[in-house]
């Protein structure tokens, strides 16, 4: 058996795969954050809460309405996106012109409220969501048993990341969107409803977080606290990738997932801080992040 640093190659390969799974979660969450920050200039601290609400929506759809996973994949992002849209109209739109700190405070407060309300209703230990029938079971890939569901997570989240990137960077709608944030007055003069575009962008970013929540519901306990531990890591991912850079957030999300996976083998105690360590190093070397322009 071949060893690398005294660790069997099988273990290394397994960790690489698991790192990719976690990395694709990070990528999808940081993507939503990057879109919202890049186009709206809002530091959306409620992102973890929307992720958690997406998972809860999935669970409620099954438990109350008896609608399964595939329904949830569509309905949960839609309904949480709608909540995002309402919040944007009610509160967030008044904060675009002021310091980003206010947006951060508002969204942080909103996420605390969401967590508190769901904890009051459902308790802290959370609910179990079953893996959908067709995605049950494992592949034997030689060095480990890889659950089919995790493969589904990698494939679907990476394709969603790609589609979002394509939409914003390569389509006409995307270029209008970018123009509207660059110079709203001018774009408005061309007859485009800029406030509405901004509103839908925020809702879209929120829906992405909710979708990540749906994907993770069968994997981890659906609990009110599931977002708060993740959101800090995801923020670090966005900072490393470069605030607002869409491609940067995807690549650094996947990359950091893999690095974190390896840390879990070599020095597991450090696995929850390794991302922040990398963030500190990156910020010293490139203050705008790896893919940021400035």
């Amino acid at each position, binding site marked *: 058996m071949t060893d690398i640093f005294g660790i069997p190659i099988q273990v290394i390969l397994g960790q690489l795969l698991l790192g990719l799974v976690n990395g694709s979660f990070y990528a999808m969450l940081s993507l939503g954050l990057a879109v919202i920050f890049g186009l709206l200039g809002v530091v959306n601290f409620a992102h973890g809460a929307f992720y958690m609400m997406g998972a809860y929506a999935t669970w409620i759809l099954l438990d109350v309405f008896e609608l399964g996973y595939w329904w949830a994949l569509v309905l949960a992002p839609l309904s949480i996106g709608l909540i995002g849209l309402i919040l944007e109209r009610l509160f967030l739109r008044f904060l675009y012109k002021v310091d980003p700190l206010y947006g951060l405070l508002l969204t942080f407060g909103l996420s605390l409220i969401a967590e508190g309300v769901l904890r009051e209703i459902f*308790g*802290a230990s959370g609910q179990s969501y079953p893996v959908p029938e067709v995605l049950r079971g*494992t592949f034997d890939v030689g060095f480990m048993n890889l659950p089919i569901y995790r493969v589904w997570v990698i494939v679907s989240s990476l394709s969603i990341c790609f589609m979002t990137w394509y939409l914003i960077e390569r389509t006409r709608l995307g270029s209008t969107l970018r123009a509207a944030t660059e110079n709203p007055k001018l774009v408005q003069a061309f007859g485009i409803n800029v406030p509405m575009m901004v509103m839908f962008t925020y809702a879209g970013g929120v829906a992405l977080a909710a979708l990540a929540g749906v994907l993770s519901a069968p994997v981890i306990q659906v609990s009110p*606290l599931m977002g708060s*531990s993740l959101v800090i890591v995801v923020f670090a991912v966005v900072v490393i990738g470069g605030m607002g850079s869409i491609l940067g957030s995807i690549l650094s999300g996947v990359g950091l997932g893999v690095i974190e996976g390896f840390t879990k083998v070599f020095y597991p105690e450090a696995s929850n801080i390794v991302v922040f360590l990398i963030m500190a190093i990156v910020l010293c070397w490139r203050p705008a992040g790896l893919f940021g322009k400035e």
Partner: protein
Amino acid sequence: MKLTKKYIPFAIALAIHIALFAPSSTLAANEVVIGDIDDMSGLYADVLGPGGVEAAKMAIEDFGGTVIGKKIVLLTADHQNKPDVGSSKFREWADKNDVNMILGGNNTGVSIAMSKVAAEKKIPFIPIGAAGSSLTNADCTAYTVHYAYDTTALANGTAKVITDNGGKTWFFITADYAFGTQLQNAATKVITENGGKSLGAVRAPLAASDFSSFLLQAQSSKAQVLGLSNAGADFTNSLKAANEFGITKTMKPAALLAYISDIHSLGLKTAQGLYLTDGWYWDLNDDTRAFAKRYFAKMKKEPTMPQAAYYSAITTYLKAVKAVNTTDSDKVMAELKSMKINDFFAKGGYIREDGVMIHEMYVMQVKTPEESQYPWDYYKLVKKMKGEEAFGPLSDSTCPLVKKK
């Protein structure tokens, strides 16, 4: 006139200040103040949390709301799993509210920090949710009573039963703080004494979001038993992932600490067959069911072992106060350590010199979905352990207060 008008706001401020702060010391003389410092909102909030507060209220109400002619008052605070928050709240209540006894909820790390304050302020401190047995060993104080269970009892239950049944090689997934390592060490001791062996452990950060990586390491150790030396959401998430990755097919999972709230949230399909050690179960006998029924009516959940222990600990404390007719800490502690505890929680329980409350413990196995007859019918009793068997002999205690003979 002008001058006096100017001073009105100051006068009002002074009046408010007096109204808010002054009476606490005068009133406290007519009150017995019990504090509850626990994780009210984090990953352990379902183990005690708001349910613990409800059990405490029930205990006070059942006692009649007064003891030795004083009103019983309950204060509650959220320590957020931060030792500094827990100990500073303890200190604040000791200085400002003349607190007479503090119940410590979950988290061994926080309870160790609070026990230092208890020793300094000479206030009885009853940790219940915290499992670490160091609370009555290296960290013991003259004012600590470790009430419901500890890591020694958990290991003597689950680890012994599984090793005796042929689970000789173990690999641990351990929560990376005081509780996790103490539990792992206690289990390793029991396993080795019974002819088994620990093949290693991986320390996972508290509230990790993904356990698959750690589980894969456990699997490559080729051990027979997967020892889950963690609790709450960490336990449920690691067991869930172990099922998903097919690890439970080759390794037998052992819950070194699981509460009924965890089993309820996992569901029997995932948790079935699991061995665990419990100090109390709602469906043990008529007494436990009677309490559970009243609790369920309020909380719509069956009580966990620590929640039932909250009720029992408060009642025991109040009985001690009544017996010595004072809240004087030293007199109450002496009474606590000499009385017998007989209620729905413990039969013939007693508090030992080192502060451990010795009582019967139970090794349980989680039922299969087919075996479960009614809601919350989750456990079958595998083994009853006598108090001394579960908590180990006093001669094992490293508590400096214990006089070596």
